């Protein structure tokens, strides 16, 4: 039993050591340098899945000696993983609150950069069975509305809009992930759901989007930053520049994101 405990501790020490290598900030390379090499892991919020996967491939094409691995999950999950020592080089969050957790823990190199914004949109099944036209319709009796729980970024945005418009919703479900909200709408179980514009765009013909005026009162700002513990800080920096650059912004805009 003692031997097993010692082995476990030794293993933990080794793993911890590899995650905590110190790095010196390198000079900022030009974004078109072909000689850029290394591999990075990008942790991105779930809502960035399609866009960042495409951007990763584009970046690899630009820099043949670079590999970009991606990992997508809820922003809070990613924060937990990074804080526990997961090997990420770049972190793109769905809101500033989660990024702040890492910056206050001194895990971010420099200052994070805002690279996109997202606003909420009403999603309804293609046939719009409850005849939704605007935000106020969501509170009509008999309408099955599904939203994000207030603890999650899209849920916090919903609360802001409720306060701003004075309309209080009585949802049938408060999901923990915006994909689950979308799922309830696309499966026809819910009459309406509040999701991001990008989610509606990405769902294609599975749902119909209904923009509403009040959405502008709750804008989610997406920050991106490099991790201090990154083993390839030059490549990390280059990727961030790529995302905030012309190509990156175009891809994001096409997906429905707003300007930062």
């Amino acid at each position: 039993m003692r031997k097993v405990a010692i082995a476990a501790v030794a293993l933990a020490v080794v793993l911890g050591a590899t995650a905590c290598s110190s790095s010196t900030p390198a000079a900022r390379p030009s974004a078109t340098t072909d000689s850029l090499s290394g591999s990075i892991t990008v942790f991105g919020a779930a809502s960035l899945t399609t866009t960042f996967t495409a951007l990763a491939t584009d970046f690899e094409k630009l820099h043949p000696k670079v590999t970009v691995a991606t990992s997508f999950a809820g922003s809070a999950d990613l924060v937990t993983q990074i804080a526990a020592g997961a090997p990420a080089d770049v972190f793109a969050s769905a809101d500033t609150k989660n990024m702040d957790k890492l910056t206050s823990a001194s895990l971010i190199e420099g200052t994070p950069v805002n690279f996109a914004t997202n606003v909420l949109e009403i999603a309804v099944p293609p046939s719009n069975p409850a005849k939704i036209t605007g935000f106020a319709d969501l509170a009509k009796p008999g309408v099955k509305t599904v939203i994000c729980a207030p603890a999650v970024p899209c849920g916090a945005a919903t609360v802001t809009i409720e306060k701003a418009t004075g309309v209080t919703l009585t949802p049938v479900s408060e999901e923990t992930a915006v994909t689950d909200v979308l799922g309830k709408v696309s499966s026809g179980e819910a009459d309406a759901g509040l999701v991001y514009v990008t989610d509606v765009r990405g769902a294609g013909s599975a749902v119909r989007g209904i923009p509403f005026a009040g959405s502008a009162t709750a804008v989610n700002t997406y920050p991106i930053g490099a991790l201090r513990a990154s083993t390839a800080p030059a490549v990390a920096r280059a990727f961030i520049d790529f995302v905030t650059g012309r190509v990156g912004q175009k891809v994001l805009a096409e997906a429905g994101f707003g300007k930062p």
Partner: protein
Amino acid sequence: MTISSAVPRWIVVIAAIGAVFVLLPIVAMTTRVDWGQFFPLISSAASRDALLLSLRTSLASTVVCVVLGVPMSLVLARTTFAGQRAVRALVLLPLVLPPVIGGIALLAAYGRMGLLGQTFQVLGIQIAFSTTAVVLAQSFVALPFLVLSLEGALRIAGTRYEAVAATLGASPSTVLWRVTMPLVLPAILSGAVLSFARALGEFGATLTFAGSLQGVTRTLPLEIYLQRETDPDAAVALALVLVVVSLLVVGLTLRTSGITRRSAL
């Protein structure tokens, strides 16, 4: 600890490693709990609602599992019919199905757009987003545990006592209530415990099929999932509550089934 000579020593070593493998994460979790904050964390309204909802729904699901599972076990163990193997495999399917897939399947059957959706609407029955949906989801994933446990016990028990009872003049229903059921009661109990534990920990199917609303459908696992977004400490504290409740249930019922075995009726 006395090691029986019937078991080679290296087996005991591997078994000990297995035990550590399972127990270490749970023990590690208890070290993560902020004990100073523990009671406020678990006694919040949301936590209380989640725990009570979990207990209520798991209990209801266990009843459903027993009511449906006992006849299913009897038919599988004591009758023969064409396609029996296929039916058994299908009945045990929820055991291997990822729970989220189970949720999707439940939607396909009982959801608004599902097979029975229109029928339910006409009858005025609302299933989605209701506590009923939670019970359905939990029963769906927990039923195979009871069927598996009980069918095995029924096969082993054999039918000799039932044959004697019949020759003494007992009708098939009397035989069932007075002979079969009492003899396999320990197996029913342990199957029910397994079902309850599975229902208590059910997450994926509930999330997909029933949704998540405090007091209505947000069971303890769903509450933990939500708390992770903002307050990992609360999540760990609640997880510990779930572990303790499960241990209590399992421990208590094993004790009572032992008592039943010793002094039958």
